[in-house]
């Protein structure tokens, strides 16, 4: 189980570093795969319920096949290949990623001080995925990469959930999966629209809506 968590963390560092969208998508798909087998590993010795297997298969199908395919299609249609230089350079964001790893380690350590958790490493990985997902969302310019970032974030949340060993009934888990799927699906559709409206996928260039301009100074200014 810890090994899977480690793999997840490494994949994140890779994501932070890579500039090629295709590679990033593949990496996220790989994360999905890992996440799919994580619950099986968590359940560990023997008592694998049918529901558990079904769930993990479903999540693998969604996260490592369907969604990557969708994003891939979006990427191809928009004809963007690689991420342009982000707000924070790739090297820097990798370093930042390492720092975040440390932070999440720290937090988990503090949390453990009060209540022990089954597998701290996985929890660390979970926090780390969440943080690096946020980092991707914050630093990357392409809307596509932001979608990836969001996926990473979700993966992080799931990892954390698994590490805490707090799983709900199948219905809830399925519902959660469905939500995530529809969410990413919608994002995918919007990516097409963005591509058509703006013919670029640079989210950092959407800032038409802001409160920077100010209304004409109102009545109280009028001199008597």
């Amino acid at each position, binding site marked *: 189980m810890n090994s899977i968590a480690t793999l997840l963390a490494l994949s994140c560092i890779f994501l932070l570093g890579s500039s090629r969208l295709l590679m990033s998508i593949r990496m996220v798909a790989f994360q999905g795969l890992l996440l799919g087998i994580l619950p099986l590993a968590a359940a560990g010795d023997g008592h694998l319920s049918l529901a558990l297997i079904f769930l993990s298969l479903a999540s693998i199908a969604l996260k490592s096949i369907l969604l990557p395919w969708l994003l891939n299609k979006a990427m191809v*249609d928009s004809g963007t290949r690689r991420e342009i230089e982000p707000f924070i350079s790739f090297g820097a964001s990798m370093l930042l990623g390492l720092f975040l790893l440390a932070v999440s380690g720290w937090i988990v350590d503090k*949390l453990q001080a*009060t*209540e022990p*958790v089954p597998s701290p490493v996985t929890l660390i990985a*979970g926090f780390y995925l*969440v943080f690096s997902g*946020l980092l991707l*969302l914050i630093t990357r310019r392409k*809307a596509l990469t*932001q979608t990836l970032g*969001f996926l990473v*974030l*979700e993966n*992080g*949340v799931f990892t*954390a*959930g698994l590490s*805490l*060993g*707090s799983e*709900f009934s199948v219905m*809830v888990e399925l*519902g*959660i999966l*469905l*939500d995530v799927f*529809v*969410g990413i699906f*919608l*994002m995918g*559709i*919007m990516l*097409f*629209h*963005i591509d*058509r*409206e*703006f013919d670029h996928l640079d*989210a950092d260039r*959407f800032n*038409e*809506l802001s*409160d920077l*301009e*100010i*209304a*004409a*100074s*109102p*009545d*109280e*200014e*009028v*001199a008597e």
Partner: protein
Amino acid sequence: MNTAWALIILPAVTGLCSLFIDSERLRKNLLVVVAFLHLYMSLQLCNGSAGELDGVWLGVDHLTRIFLTLTSLLFTGSAVYSMIYLDKHPHADGADLAGWQFLRNRNAIFVACMQLFLAAMSLAILSMHFGLQWIGIEATTLASTPLIYYHRNRRSLEAAWKYMIICSVGIALALMGVFFLAKTTTQHVQLFTPAGLVLFAGYLKLGWLKVAFIFFLVGYGTKMGLAPMHTWLPDAHSEAPSPVSAMLSGALLNCAFLGILRIYQVCVAIPATAAFASELLIIAGLVSMGFSGIFIMHQPDYKRMLAYSSVEHMGILATGIGLGGSAIAGALLHAICHSLIKAPMFLLAGNILSAFNTKKVEEVSGLLKSMPFTGMLWLAGFLAITGTPPFGTFISEFAILKAALQTRSWTTAGLYLLFLLIVFIGMLTIVMQMTLGRRPDDHADEHHHHNPAAKDHEQKHEKHHKHDAASAVSGSVIDEDLLQIMTPVIFLSLALILGFYLPEYVRQAINGGALLLGGAIL
């Protein structure tokens, strides 16, 4: 119980169906019928036995009563309004979305998503199970994004994208919160509901509970529009079609608020976490009120102004809940009044927008003369939303202030009043600019009235006076449709009635809710 499920499933099914209905009229009628059906059923459900139903998944307690009734009331209102709204926007085919034929007709999507939105909100409100509730709240985001993108232009696309991303991130964090919350209890929870956890209150692990609350606050707070996570709110509200903005501000924010209330319900059961949660809520509330004050001053766009006012009121709610005691009942009452007032305000904004087709404040003036009803209601709504008696907001705000002073938290009370004042001044300036003065068509000499350089503008008034009075009465009046006016009138008069008379049903619900949240009755 079946009613409860029906409340969720009915709109979902009809919504999906209406994607494939071709006739515009049929779709619209379906929407209204579903709305009234939903209202009827939810009233029945709420009038039913008090306390929880079996309450493992869905349940009805006093908080549910308040928010469910409110939501389906508002939905009915904006459904009726959107009849005429859709008439004003004849259905135009959007360009095909990567080959999905059934996603072409934007009005079909509008009607469908409205109902899905309703379903999602009903789920979010009715569900007692934290996980189920999370699903509901996430679903509201998914259902409402296409609604925000109704106009199919760059601005609405940008707004929708920001809404989607920010809210999804927030909600994802909330999910993490849910996991942590699950961790607080002994391994396998039978009853993962507020009531269930309160039963275990003694055994809960405080550390995890605190972490969970933080994640809930940040996650659902994003959706609820607490500053500084509110950033999606003004964009979405200003770009969405008016009936949708009304729903977003009047109903959706409440759902997220309920999400926070649910975990707060658990927190107050334990003194240590109660203090912790209250502190965070008060801080979040005051920060939100301050933010909205800053942005309402000189706000050039009147729909954004309303949006920021929603941020302010969410702040008031958070502060009220945080203060505890009788402030909680006050906050609940305030939530009701805010929804009843803010929704009609957005609908009126829709009227103004369709008449003047601009969202700029300085391009609108003389409403009282050009659209007498809308203008009068707009003023009334302004007075109501700023807590002027005899509207209900006055009672609730005063109750919160009283509680603040009772708990000797002077700074909170002071800041609270200060921010209320700033918002009032900002909105007053804008609303006066819009409702008073001449109509834009005879704006010509307005400017050299305004001209501050004119030393003796008093004298000018004397000169202009006669002609002004003449031009004020002459000129055409933009006709207002009954449907455009009816809904705001009804909602505002409800808010007015709440000012001096609380129906027993409402009073019970509020007091019950307050007790659930460890507060005192009104």
